[in-house]
């Protein structure tokens, strides 16, 4: 399948005049069209830095990120906004804007200086709201929505931006299990039926294993591994990436088990 984003020998980190801090290095992989990829890894492995580098916010130390064959760090912000949209962990306080108006802001890169929406814009906005199943939320203001509902609206906004790629950073963090499942299903639909390439970083291994087409597994200090969920489970990559004292990844059940000795200790 056609790749939309390509990472070529990508090394991320921070460069200051005196200091060079490499976080992840030598990543070669791609994000395909109509694919949902979950980026998972333990805390401190460099997920956020990698996400920021892929979305063009941060310059890489070495290597390149290509979006449809063009170096993403050479694109103008306006062009990039039409190709790539974000959903962030941060809670949004949009005052008295209604959910509809928030989704409508997704049309920002396409409207004129006054931000006037055309009929076609309205159709895209409504399509996005329908896509996330939030028709009945459209007239409510953001403070009136629950965390899950608000996240759905932010996803609809990113969808209304009509990008090729959607990048979502820990968007399921505040949500309970049913809501998380709902969001993953929704993202699958947007990828497979809506034609978007979606990259989601998450702590939620369980959900990633069940929902993702492919997984980018980023162990702390190690090389990133890419593969279908079941392959990564079976070849022991998961076990290695999340090896910590007191627990292990059980490849049979696809879940973490806490060692019995550790359990008794904690009581």
């Amino acid at each position, binding site marked *: 399948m056609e790749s939309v984003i390509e990472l070529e020998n990508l090394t991320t980190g921070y460069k200051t005049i005196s200091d060079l801090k490499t976080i992840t290095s030598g990543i070669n992989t791609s994000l395909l069209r109509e694919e949902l990829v979950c980026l998972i890894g333990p805390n401190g492995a460099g997920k956020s830095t990698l996400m920021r580098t892929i979305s063009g916010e941060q310059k890489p130390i070495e290597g390149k990120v290509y979006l449809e064959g063009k170096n993403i760090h050479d694109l103008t912000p306006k062009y990039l906004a039409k190709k790539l949209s974000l959903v962030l962990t941060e809670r949004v306080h*949009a005052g008295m804007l209604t959910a509809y108006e928030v989704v409508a802001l997704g049309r920002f890169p396409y409207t004129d200086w006054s931000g006037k929406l055309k009929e076609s814009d309205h159709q895209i906005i*409504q399509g996005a709201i329908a896509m996330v199943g939030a028709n009945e939320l459209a007239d409510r203001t953001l403070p009136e929505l629950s965390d899950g509902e608000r996240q759905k609206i932010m996803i609809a906004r990113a969808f209304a931006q009509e990008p090729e790629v959607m990048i979502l950073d820990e968007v399921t963090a505040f949500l309970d299990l049913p809501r998380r499942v709902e969001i993953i299903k929704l993202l699958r639909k947007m990828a497979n039926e809506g034609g978007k390439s979606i990259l989601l970083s998450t702590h939620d291994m369980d959900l990633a294993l069940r929902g993702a087409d492919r997984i980018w597994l980023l162990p702390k200090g190690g090389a990133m591994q890419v593969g279908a969920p079941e392959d990564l489970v079976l070849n022991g990559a998961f076990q290695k990436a999340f090896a910590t004292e007191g627990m292990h990844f059980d490849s049979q059940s696809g879940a973490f088990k806490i060692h019995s000795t550790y359990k008794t200790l904690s009581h």
Partner: protein
Amino acid sequence: MKNIASTLATPLSTSKSRFRLASHSRLFLFPILIAGTLVVFLLELGIGSVKIPVSGIITTLIGGQVAEAMWSTIILELRLPRTLAAIIGGAALGVAGLQLQTLFKNPLAGPWALGLTAGAQLGVAMVVTAAAVIGSSILEKFEFMSNLSIVAGAMLGCVLVLMIMVTVSKYVSTITMLIFGLMLGFLAQGLISVILHFTNQSQTKIYAGWNDGSFAGVYWEHFPILIPIAIVGLVGSWLMTKSLNAFLLGENYARSMGLSVKRTRLITLACAVLLAGPVTAYCGPILFLGLIIPHLARGLFSTSDHRILMPAVMLLGAIVAQAADLFVHLPWEKHFLHLNAVNALIGAPVVMWVILKNKKMRGFEI
């Protein structure tokens, strides 16, 4: 993709029409606000120690002869400049407040609360002092220059304060920032007192005259400077409405939509300086108006959409500032009322309401 669109077509059409109603249902208020501005305008010109009937006002304004010769003098020399200053001041301070609230994500931000007003005053005090030291004879020869130097001083003071506040805002929370702004204001006031100690008395008097905010100190010769700068500030603000709407989602989202955050901040803050600086230079410190008018507009129109708020704030600013000034100039028998006393009577309760409302929502909402 296709089948999704078709299955969801029916509920969509209803949600669309409902949305359009929700967003534009209060637009009928605009003609009412325009009418309100005109009514208060006529009252401002008509009411005072001398009462002038509407017919007399209109005749004077179109340049005709009125029954009482004194009327035209009162209107043209005293009340009209004062009223125009109130209209411009109210609109300018309101728009500056709206921009600062959105930019700093702080519902209690405003030209006064962030220390801009005090910065402008300090700038003017410095210009007055500098003139005393250098010898104001040169400036006095060219009245226009002296006018301009005061405005330039005020704007420079605003810029300095804003630079400090932008830096501080990176490190402290919204509430702490407001306290910082108010402290900056006190600091500026202290500095002004010290500076004025070194100037001669007559100049101190000029300064003390507008140390208390008032629209009555604005005369015709000030408008050639005040009006063009205010217009540039207002037009500039209007051009930023789309960007300010994106800012409501936070800087990170705004950036991801292709917005240049740095440029938006710079232009918006420049507009705030153009709006707050000259008004403070000529009217003195006008408290509360810049802070409360955006909230009145949001409450009235029930939206945070800047495309609606911008004209709403201009009209409401003109109405509230004129009304406050009118209240000051009612024919009181025993007292002389201060404009800021009236502003506090309107403003303080609104601020209290904003604080309580936001507490209920847990976190700040603009």
